[in-house]
């Protein structure tokens, strides 16, 4: 096993052990902290497919995160009020249904955004994804039906067949299982033909086109899949907080997702996991010391960008290796 693989296993076990350690210490609050880590990691795993493997610097993934969140909130509120959603389609308070709807809705949005923005590259791509995410943000603010600026509460956490999701550790395990499933998916994709084409297009777009693979279609597919994963994370986030609001779609959220990946290590399979653990810990520890924790986060981030490009995994395991 390489050092990176060992470190990945350590990260996965650490995150899994965290809520049980918290329960053992009689600090149930830390369970929700671990759940937050798992959900943010899942959102960033989605982004990592586009950004890390595909080199597509999307500054708009908060839109997919938020759409997933609203999918959960809207379905749950219709189910709770027993009102049909559209043409007698009922709402739902079952997580599997909600995840599918969240993934489809976020994927559709990613398809629309990607179809336009992937025609461009570089800074254009960054600015356009940012702008489109902002469009969804303003839409959520000014659309009065689901709370507008005030957001939408979820009265009871949505259910999962056979499990009691109100138990914090159970909900953590659901999130953790989804995170592991997404990592497994990305691991297979990374080493597959699709992954080869996607990573090659990041390194040299002209070459990929010259051998007869059209980068646009590869990237659009990756972008949609990436949005879908982040959308499911958004649905979980809504269930964690039992609340959705436009702030899930704000550009700070997009920025934070990128920051997670960079703190952990860009293009590394477990980069988002390392980044999410680090980010939530920093937020919690610094936030406990000073109200100005964002100032220190800014300074740390600046330091990482200027002096430690590989992130945490780069520090531990050195440069990435390709076969």
């Amino acid at each position, binding site marked *: 096993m390489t050092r990176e693989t060992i470190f990945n296993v350590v990260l996965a076990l650490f995150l899994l052990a965290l809520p049980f350690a918290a329960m053992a210490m009689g600090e149930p609050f830390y369970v929700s902290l671990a759940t937050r880590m798992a959900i943010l990691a899942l959102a960033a795993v989605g982004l990592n497919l586009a*950004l890390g493997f595909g080199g597509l*610097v999307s*500054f708009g993934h908060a839109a997919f995160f938020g759409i997933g969140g609203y999918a959960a909130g809207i379905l749950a509120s219709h189910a709770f009020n027993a009102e049909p959603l559209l043409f007698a389609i009922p709402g739902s308070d079952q997580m599997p249904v909600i995840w599918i709807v969240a993934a489809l809705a976020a994927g559709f949005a990613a398809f629309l955004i990607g179809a*336009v*923005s992937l*025609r*461009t590259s*570089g*800074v*254009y791509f*960054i*600015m*356009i994804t*940012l*702008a*489109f995410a*902002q*469009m969804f943000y*303003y*839409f959520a*603010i*000014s*659309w*009065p*039906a689901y709370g507008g600026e005030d957001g939408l509460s979820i009265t009871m956490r949505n259910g999962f067949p056979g499990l009691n999701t109100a138990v914090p550790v159970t909900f953590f395990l659901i999130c953790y299982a989804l995170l592991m499933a997404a990592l497994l998916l990305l691991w297979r994709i990374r080493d597959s033909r699709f992954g080869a084409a996607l990573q090659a297009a990041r390194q040299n777009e002209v070459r990929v086109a010259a051998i007869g693979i059209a980068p646009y279609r590869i990237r659009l597919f990756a972008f949609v899949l990436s949005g879908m994963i982040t959308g499911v994370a958004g649905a979980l986030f809504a269930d964690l907080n039992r609340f959705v609001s436009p702030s899930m779609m704000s*550009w700070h959220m997009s*920025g934070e997702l*990128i*920051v997670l990946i*960079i703190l952990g290590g*860009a293009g590394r399979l477990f980069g988002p996991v390392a980044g999410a653990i680090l980010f939530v810990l920093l937020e919690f520890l610094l936030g406990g010391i000073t109200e*100005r924790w*964002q*100032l220190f*986060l*800014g*300074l740390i*981030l*600046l330091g990482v*960008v*200027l002096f430690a*490009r590989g992130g945490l995994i780069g520090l531990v395991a050195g440069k990435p290796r390709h076969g």
Partner: protein
Amino acid sequence: MQTALLIEQLLNGIQFGVMLFLMAAGLTLIFGVMGLINLAHGSLYMVGAFACAWVAAATGSFWLGLLASLVAAAAAGAIVEMTVIRRLYGRDHLDQVLATFALILIFSEATRWVFGSFPLYLNIPPLLGGAVALPGGVHYPLYRLAIIGVGLAVALGLYLLISRTRLGMRIRAGESDREMIGALGVDIRTLYTIVFALGAALAGLAGAMVGALQSVQVGMGEPVLILAFVVIVIGGIGSIKGAFVGALLVGITDTMGRLLLPQMLAAIIGPAQAAGIGAALASMLIYIVMALILAVRPKGLFAAQA
């Protein structure tokens, strides 16, 4: 009445557009010359607004405040350029985005630290108070007209600066060939600092002027920054002319859309529903315009040659 309202809103759109131009001009200039995407440009806008509000409150003079906004934003820009931005020129865009995102966090928290969490207020100077009677029975605030005037003057000034002066020649040379201006013996580091400070000063000016129309608070620069991105995407990155046209287009489209879309919808689906849906659609309008323009011209309206 309807005509008067239309004219008034059109002027509001132009005023908004001109203010966006001040932001977008700096961004596009910095991108054109240094190849840098600067998310922290909105923070410089905020610095300008805070400097103006604070100095105006301390001295009682809006004009001293305005001067302070220019100085503070330019100085902040120069300092940031020399300490951080300079290290980012050769880096990829992801690094630039992250580092300037970090700068936003630092600027925002530092401002909150110094000025607290409550917004500051800035009054319109007495000289520019009141309204002007325009043809068509419109009474329009003099201050907003003044903003339009300042914006147009800056646009003209930038045009003259870039086409007629030595500094402008160097800027143009820097846009077309970075190595050449080094060979011409221009001190490139100083040039970059000057360009960055100039862009910062324009952002600070915009922040100060808008500060008298809205409250001055942390985070005020970010919505404007994103609109400025829309502007330069529409106009073509690196093009001042594109920034000008794009800014007016965005300003007018957004303002008129918010007025007209709900009215048009009201005629179709009734006023009760129309207010909400119309507002929601109007908030998306400029992004839809951006998507349409990109579909036809992926590099914007006035794309600089690659």
